């Protein structure tokens, strides 16, 4: 390895941008251009089979990693996360009502649904875009995927419990009623005020 090759190698490595022959020559104390070019060729040959490459791009040279090693340089890290309450609701609505548009989902949920929620469900692979509804505005409609059935252990969408079953299991009870049921009947024991004579209000005898 010649001195000029070593210097070129170091300069290409330390440079923040690709370097042309002229720039390199100036770096190396006005080395002759053909010497620089020879050095670059020699380096390019040396690195041809290594993890790095010395390559020319638009008359400027730089180091890069060998393209077939790209997969080593990107590591995947898996992370298990529970679906948010909102996303679970949207998923359930898509499952029960598919195909369904976002506006329909919102009207069933009674709240606005962020696009991010649908994205999460698509990223999870549980819903997909199933075309467009043939109404004004042609909204996108969503449906569940085979992976969805798979993940939730359902043979088909028909396995989802019907409204009648949901009601029987109490899953359709209005919240207030279910709450009252849990808190016990109204039997007056929880009245805050006791009897008038015990307490002596202004009108008590």
């Amino acid at each position, binding site marked *: 390895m010649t001195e000029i090759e070593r210097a070129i190698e170091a300069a290409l*490595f*330390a440079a923040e941008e690709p370097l042309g022959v002229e720039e390199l020559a100036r770096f190396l104390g006005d080395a002759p251009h053909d010497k620089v070019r020879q050095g670059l060729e020699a380096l390019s040959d040396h690195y041809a089979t290594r993890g790095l490459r010395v390559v020319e791009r638009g008359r400027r040279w730089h180091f890069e990693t060998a393209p077939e090693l790209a997969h080593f340089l990107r590591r995947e890290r898996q992370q298990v996360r529970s*679906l948010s309450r909102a996303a679970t609701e949207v*998923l359930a609505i898509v499952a*029960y009502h598919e195909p369904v548009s976002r506006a329909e989902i919102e009207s069933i949920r009674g709240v606005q649904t962020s696009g991010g929620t649908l994205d999460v469900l698509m990223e999870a692979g549980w819903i997909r875009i199933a075309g467009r509804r043939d109404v004004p505005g042609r909204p996108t409609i969503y449906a569940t995927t085979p992976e969805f059935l798979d993940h939730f252990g359902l043979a088909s969408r028909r396995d989802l419990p019907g409204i009648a079953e*949901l009601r029987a299991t109490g899953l359709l009870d209005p919240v207030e009623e279910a709450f009252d049921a849990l808190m016990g009947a109204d039997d007056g024991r929880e009245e805050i*005020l006791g009897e008038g004579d015990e307490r002596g209000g202004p009108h008590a005898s």
Partner: protein
Amino acid sequence: MSADRLPFAGEDPAGEGQEDAGTEDGALYLELDGWEGPLDLLLDLARRQKVDLRQISILALVDQYLDYIEHAEALKLELAADYLVMAAWLAYLKSSLLLPREEQEEPSAEELALRLQLRLQRLGAMREAAARLMACDRIGRDVFLRGAPEGLRIERKTLWKCDQYALIGAYGRVKARTAPAVHMVRERPVMTLESALDRVSAMLGVTLDWMELREFLPAHAEPRLRRSALASSFVAALELARLGRAELQQDETFGALRLRRVRR
């Protein structure tokens, strides 16, 4: 003074705050020749003897130091004070060294001198180490890192988790939340103001005597109805008084409330 402890340079302003600023341009250290404090100064003087620190003559060192102090009147005051403390200690050390051995007190001058020598050696060693350390191949000065590393990427992939129960429960929640609400008010044992008004005025019509409010209540009502009746009857009594059909009397706060019909 504690004879065995070398005085330190005083406050930081005299010590190194200035040095950070002044080392390179030499503004402050010019007159001090790079010296920072007593130990530093001694080390430098010792080095001028151009001998191994282990073999320096403490006596000669002391002479040089005292000589230096004499000529350094222009020293910064704080520094000078430190130098003088050191000078006093060294003068003491010198006299001890010159005195016959038998007359010396503990610790002996030799011990003090040895300790001073050891300290100077250690400081000298660190000075040298610092210089060698700074001469190492330093990144950004002697060696260079890659100019524009693309970096290793870590791609996070999320595995979403949800189960059937949560899914179906969520649908139930949505349905329940958006189902048309039907409100049912359960029948409660109450006496309305209207019926209390009727009842109180009817009972007042029977007598001209004072009656306690309590006597207007239905006698065998269950407790909750009784409470409701009490409240309604009280409001009814106020209403009748307002209309001028009844008068109210209460002797003391929270006392029994009585009412009777107003004669017309």
